[in-house]
């Protein structure tokens, strides 16, 4: 799966978004090819928002499958979601 990564702007982030991204990358391993969010090859997009308001503008990403996380506690569920997406079973 080719996966783009997009962060919110981080004005009041409740957790370290970059650290969380690194954890997700490590957990998913080689099942995912990580690219920039604006890479047209990416059919999927992981959005990491620092709080529940999740104010990232998603309009430019219409047509892509969006996976969003805005709480650290949702790490396992997003890993599961992305793993299924990588297997093509989502």
């Amino acid at each position, binding site marked *: 799966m080719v996966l783009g990564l997009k962060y919110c702007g*981080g004005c009041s982030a409740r957790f370290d978004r970059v650290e969380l991204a690194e954890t997700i990358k490590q957990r998913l391993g080689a099942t995912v090819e990580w690219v920039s969010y604006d890479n047209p090859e990416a059919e999927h997009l992981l959005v990491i928002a620092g709080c529940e308001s999740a104010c990232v503008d998603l309009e430019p990403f219409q047509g892509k499958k969006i996976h969003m996380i805005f709480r650290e506690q949702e790490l396992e569920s997003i890993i599961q979601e992305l793993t299924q997406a990588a297997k093509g079973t989502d």
Partner: protein
Amino acid sequence: MPMMTGEQYEQSLRKLNLNVYMFGKKVENVVDDPIIRPSMNAVKLTYELAHKPEYEDLMTANSHLTGKKINRFTHIHQSTDDLVKKTKMGRLLGSLTGCCFQRCVGMDAMNALSIVTHDIDKKHGTEYEKRFLKYLEFVQENDYTCDGAMTDPKGDRALAPHQQPDPDMFLHIVEEKADGIVVRGAKAHQTGAVNSHEIIIMPTISMRAEDADYAVSFALPADAEGITYIMGRQSCDTRKLESGTIDRGNSLYGGHESLVVFDNVFVPWDRVFMYKEYEFAGRLVENFASYHRQSYACKAGVGDVLIGATQNIAEYNGAAKASHVKDKIIEMNHLNETLFCGSVACACEGHKEPSGTYLVNTLLANVCKQNVTRFPYEIARLAQDIAGGLMVTLPSEDDFRSPEVGHWLEKYYKGNESVPTEHRMRMLRLIENITMGTAAVGYLTESMHGAGSPQAQRIMISRQVNMDQKKKVAKQLCGIEEK
């Protein structure tokens, strides 16, 4: 070069030939001067974060002129979402620097001018908007930092500009030429002036026909001939000249202010955005002030740093579990988030002006800034309450490093056993820095007077609330019938 890196920004400043004075001497190397350098670092961060994926959503925007990705500080707001992102960007930068990062004022000046140049043209058939948009594109393409300069020295406050015994108390036109104008006067309290590539001048008050020579707006390179910068002092500023970093409080960042003198400075016509259209001076002032009052979301960011420092020192002191300490920190957070609320609210309630630029809700922007004139003082008071008196009686870093007496400081200024004494000293110095040192200029007195003193906001609030509607409903509800 639509977006400079931090390093490119620093190098671009080295090419400027600014005429800067401090402590009675000309500053030959502005960028590396130890007193000025921390303020440059703060502006530099606005460039660095724009290149980081985890911040670019706030720090960048797409130019409505070219479609290119630009630093948000050079952007003209195209939606309420843009206004909200501006608020969030201010908080973010305040929360990372713990000081004034200086770049908002130029953004606010450009947004205000984008509205008013359009309005002047509509009435007078002039071409200010075209000139301004050309200038804006130049700023965006070069990713320049602009100083937005409004505040004149003002002389006798009871007198209008044209009535002043010294006509230079408000910056004014002294000569009109075929290729431009000559101006004289000064702008005071200019935050970030010597870290700027450009300076944008605006009038400071509403004006009448007699003041037409003072109704002038223009932009110049910061090193234009005839411009002199005289640096303002900040409390504890010379600590930056000392060895060590503890006593500075904030070892990385800071702000600066200066008096900017215009001694018969030439301005070419293509840089003039208002020329004697006195009836628009007040509009420009109000729009700029409203944007700039929104910008004080940055103080919530600085408040984040102060609250973090206060929680840390409470833990270092061993007092963090005391119920009154917990409650005071809750109060600090309550006040700080209330500041943020005002800025977010005026952004969400913004509207589109005829020029296409989005302007904040001016009533709520004034309410926001009115809170800013008060709450940081209370937050600072609570921080000092929790920090304890050691914050102001602590000996110097040199004493701490002294082989003769350093061990006494290590021993007697120990708090929580698990925390090194030096950490306790550093945290106390940071709180001192924000509440009474160099950063207190930005966090406290600038909160009071920057973007207009408290009474200016109260006048705007009184003008903008719908009092008739409030009275009408009150009468209806208690059964009073109007005849």
